[in-house]
């Protein structure tokens, strides 16, 4: 399998949409959607956590050869849960995955939210070519709240950039 560290974002989003995976995009892509476009190493999504939707997500990920990223000190087979549909459904965890289209992070828990249900209320949508479903991305204030909790240097820069672009800060 040929994997590449930089995500082909548009192609990843089309794969998810074609499999009718309900999800909210967060992270760098959502930051860009709210006015601070920058390159990002991955696509971060929060999927709807129903077994049916996670099964569709599993199929979508299988079609692009998804497997857990080799984390420092851990090989995929050493992860606490094996990479499987069952782990995805029952584990309710976060997965950092490598695919043939680059990295995708599947986040089922992201502070300060409980998951998809919390984020979908304020989510916005954008149509993309090649997919019937629109891509939904986290609302501005939800995104800022996530970035505040994460608190890494890039998150703090993103918060300021988002506020500047949206006329909330000078």
């Amino acid at each position: 399998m040929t994997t590449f560290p930089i995500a082909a974002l548009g192609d990843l989003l089309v794969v998810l949409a074609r499999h009718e995976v309900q999800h909210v995009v967060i992270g760098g892509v959502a930051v860009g959607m709210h006015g601070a476009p920058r390159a990002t190493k991955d696509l971060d999504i929060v999927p709807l956590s129903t077994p049916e939707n996670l099964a569709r997500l599993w199929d979508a990920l299988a079609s692009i050869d998804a497997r857990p990223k080799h984390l420092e000190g851990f090989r995929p087979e050493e992860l606490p849960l094996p990479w499987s549909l069952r782990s995805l459904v029952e584990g309710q965890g976060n997965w950092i995955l490598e695919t043939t289209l680059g990295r995708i992070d599947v986040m089922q828990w992201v502070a300060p939210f409980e998951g998809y249900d919390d984020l979908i209320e304020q989510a916005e949508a954008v149509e993309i070519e090649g997919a019937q479903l629109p891509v939904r991305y986290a609302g501005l204030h939800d995104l800022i709240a996530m970035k505040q909790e994460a608190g890494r240097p890039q998150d703090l820069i993103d918060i300021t950039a988002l506020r500047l672009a949206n006329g909330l800060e000078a």
Partner: protein
Amino acid sequence: MSGTAETEQRVRHVVALRRALEALPDGPERRRVRRVERELRQALGVGVPKGVAARVLGISVTALDRWIQKGKIVEAHRPGSSRALVEAWSLVQVALEAGRAGEAGVTRGAVAEGIRRLEAAGRLPVPSRPNEHPLILRRDFLNSTPEERLAEIDALNRQLAVLARAAWRSRLKEAG
């Protein structure tokens, strides 16, 4: 209640709710409290007046300004206003940690101790600006559609992929 008193109360409520969340187990109660905390935090906006921030922290405005000058507490400005505010999240974080220090028996310099603890944990919000001019960011946002922004991010990533691929090949070549 005056505007500043209301703002001060909001900050205190956010701090209190975040403390309460630490003790709440996962479940519907925690979810409800989290939601209220997020809404209050959003209502605080970008920043709060320095007088409010100083009262919340229990220090003088002069002392607050010294922390700001040292880059330990973040300043913010609303568009169209020259009035300097204290960035709300920065204030909440420092107030939370200063409160914990106070409860742990620190009677003098709780703010300093709170800042020290946040720094040690790598959680102290510091002044951070993007490398793009604010007016350009704002103009580009106003003059673009979500579709165009998504296309721009995709294009940026594709360019980055080309560069990364070239660097990768170069490294492989060097490694023989």
